[in-house]
């Protein structure tokens, strides 16, 4: 019975005039277009992007202070910007994201052991953000550091991912 129905259907389809077939296709196209518009609309609402980003604080430009205020080999936390400003032994600056690369917990700078530690699953990172203890798979993310007239600023708008530390990530005075 089904077979018969199908045969009838195909015969009907074959007998459609080209104009009718074209118009039918147009309906499908219009429907698809409407669906795409709807999806675009929904995406615009669930991903407002820049509009929701604050201009100040995290996501914007953070002014850290005079470069001379940060001694070599120290780490300063910037709660507001969700990052640590790390001054390397050679005097270069590195702004490290406080998010552990394992599952996104907040790492803590341990002054005594001189390393970042993740309280969630015991990952550890050194001053440059390189992994010294697993399970973290790669070095801490970092932000662009800018030094102008010896004032240090960090752009928290764009986070940069990396496998491991390399010298070109450092901003020198």
């Amino acid at each position, binding site marked *: 019975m089904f077979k018969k129905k199908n045969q009838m259907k195909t015969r009907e389809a074959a007998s459609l005039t080209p104009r009718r077939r074209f118009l039918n296709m147009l309906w499908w196209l219009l429907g698809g277009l409407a669906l795409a518009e709807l999806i675009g609309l929904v995406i615009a609402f669930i991903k407002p992007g820049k509009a929701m980003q604050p201009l100040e604080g995290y996501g914007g430009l953070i002014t850290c202070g005079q470069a001379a205020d940060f001694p070599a080999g120290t780490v300063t936390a910037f709660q507001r910007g969700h990052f640590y400003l790390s001054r390397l032994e050679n005097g270069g600056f590195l702004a490290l994201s406080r998010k552990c690369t394992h599952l996104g917990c907040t790492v803590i700078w341990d002054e005594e052991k001189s390393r970042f530690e993740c309280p*969630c*699953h015991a990952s550890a990172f050194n001053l440059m953000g390189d992994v010294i203890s*697993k399970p973290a798979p790669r070095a801490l993310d970092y932000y662009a550091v800018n030094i102008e007239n010896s004032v240090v600023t960090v752009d928290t708008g764009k986070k940069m991912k990396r496998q491991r530390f390399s010298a070109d990530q450092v901003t020198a005075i």
Partner: protein
Amino acid sequence: MKSKITPSVAGPLFKRIGQSVRRGSNRAGTSGDPGKYLPKTMLFHFRPRRVPEEAVRFTHTWGLGGMAFVLIMLLFGTGLLLKLVYKPFPDMAYDSILMIQHEIRFGLWVRNVHHWSANILVIILFLHMQRVFFTGGFHHPRQFNWVIGMVLFLLILASNFTGYLLPWDQLAYWAITISTGMLDYVPFLGGWLQAVIRGGTEIGPASLLLFFAVHTAVLPAGICMVGLFHFWRVRKAGGVVVPLVPDEEEAERRRTPVFPDLLLRELVVALVVVAFVLIFSALINAPLDMKANPGLSPNPAKAPWFFIGLQELLLHVHPVFSVLVIPVLLSGGLLLVPYINYASNRGGIWFYSENGRRMGIYAVAAAVLFTAAGILGDAFFFDFTTALPMLPPVVGSGLLPVIIFTGAAAVFLMALKRRFSADSNEAVQSLYIFLMVMYVVLTITCLWFRGTDMALAWPWGK
């Protein structure tokens, strides 16, 4: 036909209104016979007039589907109450929870009922899925209803997950951070998906608002629609699965009226479930930690318990496998369960056969042993993540351990199949049992046997 209906009803106003509400009740010959009256009302349209006698036996289904329905109704009710006072903004959410608990009469209790119903629901649905599988309720004509059931399960899990964030305490914040953090490991799409779910790079105001909207509007609507579809397919398949009989005996099958035999049993189950949840919620409070502090991670931080098996897997196997390959293969396999070529599509009998039952016991034992051996072996004897530095991590800590484990499991299952000279139904059932028990063992390990730094520890230790 027309002559049977009384053309107009005379009498007092209230009586006439009452009769107009109960449509059909004024049909001749139906009054006083609920067996004939019930199928005519909308509420009982979901039910046939009579069902096979086996179908109403409690131990045939354990009433699990009905229990799930009752819990969902409890969740809708308490959820609506909570929605009237909850504020989905990071600086107000936690305080509104405190307000619900301390200021509103019975607020604490209502939140407890919502919390415990949601958690019990996941367990009940898991058991319901096992009941359907082990009584062969996924064979023709119920094949697609298994898939619908899986979608429902997914929606309920999503509800639990989105609801988990709303209290905005440390527990909520970090559990959601961690589980969305796992998405980072999905190649290509993961980062984008994570940004959409979080509404940004971190869990923040956008995430809370999104989770709230999805939790209180999108998912309940989805559950209603897919749920009705699920029930309708049950009805169309002729009710729950019962043992097949030859066609000539089908007419002589002993049947029993839905009212009162089935409905009264369901009412009893529903009342017991409601009573249990209400009393349980009066005695035990839903957890509420300190207010969320994005700068302070707890040690250890764990995902919500129904996803915690994946977190345990992540400790052992390379992320590409533990958060992508294995979950995708397993859930894909679950969806395809009804579409495997089986030796027989006999349903309605627990565990298919005596042979299947005995094989199942071996499969349970093997799954517990293999999984425990894998976890302990990784912890104390051989750490794949560091032992093979010459191999790329995807191979050394991903492909290699996965191949070794599945290889061992496959050899065992083949041997089991030969030993019992099993047919394909029994073999698939053993594999299914193995995988289910494996996930349960992973869940229990991470939930109760992982302490500080996610190291193995006894649950009764510090």
